[in-house]
């Protein structure tokens, strides 16, 4: 299918789009934290996927390869957009679901919004490495692959991001607690 899509077969391209859309969206969402502006970035990512398809050699899975492109798309988006200030009071969620797990999810969303606001203020490469490794829970080797970086550089970025976030969290107990939570309870 990838071969046919790379040769311009529109049906194969549509099929590929359907097959890859969830993983591409997942990667962009984890790095950026919400669906705002994601439609434009998804377009950019898929255009690049189709453009680069002839060069896909099958060294990694098509899914992983497309996630690498999504990561690169997110990086460029972060680099080109100005930091925005988000009013945390505006983005609060109401917990309306009676499902006990809904409270946990709502609390996670609440804390994650604070985390993504803090992430806006740190270096894009550190932010991406942290988002993929700590928020999404990917192994560092996979993060290194997705960010087209060495394992050492990836480890360093995650460590620096965590240090910077912990520093920023000194005035924000919710964020501090969430950072510990995401690290599996390790302070």
């Amino acid at each position, binding site marked *: 299918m990838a071969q046919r899509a790379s040769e*311009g077969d*529109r*049906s194969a*391209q*549509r099929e590929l*789009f359907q097959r890859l*859309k969830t993983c591409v*969206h*997942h990667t962009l*969402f*984890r790095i950026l934290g*919400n*669906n705002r502006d*994601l*439609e434009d970035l*998804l*377009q*950019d*990512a*898929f*255009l*690049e996927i*189709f*453009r*680069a398809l002839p*060069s896909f050699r099958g060294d990694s899975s098509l899914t992983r390869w497309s996630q690498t*492109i999504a*990561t*690169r*798309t997110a*990086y*460029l988006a972060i*680099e080109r957009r100005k930091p925005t200030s988000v009013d945390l009071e505006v983005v609060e969620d109401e917990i309306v679901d009676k499902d006990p797990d809904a*409270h*946990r*999810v709502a*609390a*996670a*969303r609440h*804390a*994650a919004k604070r985390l993504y606001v803090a992430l806006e203020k740190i270096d894009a*490469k550190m932010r*991406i490495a942290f988002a993929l490794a700590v*928020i*999404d*829970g990917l192994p560092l080797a996979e993060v290194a692959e997705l*960010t*087209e*970086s060495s394992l050492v550089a990836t480890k360093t970025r995650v460590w620096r991001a965590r240090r910077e976030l912990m520093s920023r969290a000194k005035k924000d*107990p*919710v964020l501090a*607690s*969430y950072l510990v*939570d*995401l690290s599996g*309870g390790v302070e």
Partner: protein
Amino acid sequence: MTEHQRERLGPPPVDAMSDVAWARVERKVFSRMEATGGTVTAAVGAREIRGSAAARSHWVWLAVPAAAAAAFALAFFSMNGPSGSTQSEEPSRIVAGSAPSSVTFGDTHLTLDANTALVMDQAAAKPTALLEHGSALFTVPARGERQFTVLAGDTTVRTANGQFRVSRDGELAQVKVDTGTVRITFRGHDVTVAANHSWSALQPADVVDNGTN
């Protein structure tokens, strides 16, 4: 901190995008590919994440096609996008399984053949049905300037009054008009199909009289 926050929270869930949002993304991706003659102009570029001045200068080369694509998208959605309409219904996805299914949206009646799926977006000034696959009969009463739109892959069918059937199998769309008139656009082709005539994406420039079939 509440009891709930003391539990392990983990990452927040990934918020899914609506079918309509995905349809928009898909449509725009393939429109942009179509606009560049099938040769995709990269918006991202095959660069390493390290970035460089050369990478930034690449954007200059992308400015013209990107602006054209943006203008195209803007024009397209200014025709189909939300306006001052007071309708606020959420898009609905309708799936007909092994049996046909009928449904009414406002003044428009839809009959879905078996194994058909479509997404109906009434929030737009011009209500839009996205036919994912299968075949459906649309009955659109006279509605003045307010057109009803059916999207089937790269095929767009518009009418302000008529009964017509749209079938989609992958990229192949076919339209058969029973009453009224519909306008069809498909990859640069723009044809008007009157009552008792048909159109197929296989021969997008031709309109066939049903009586001659």
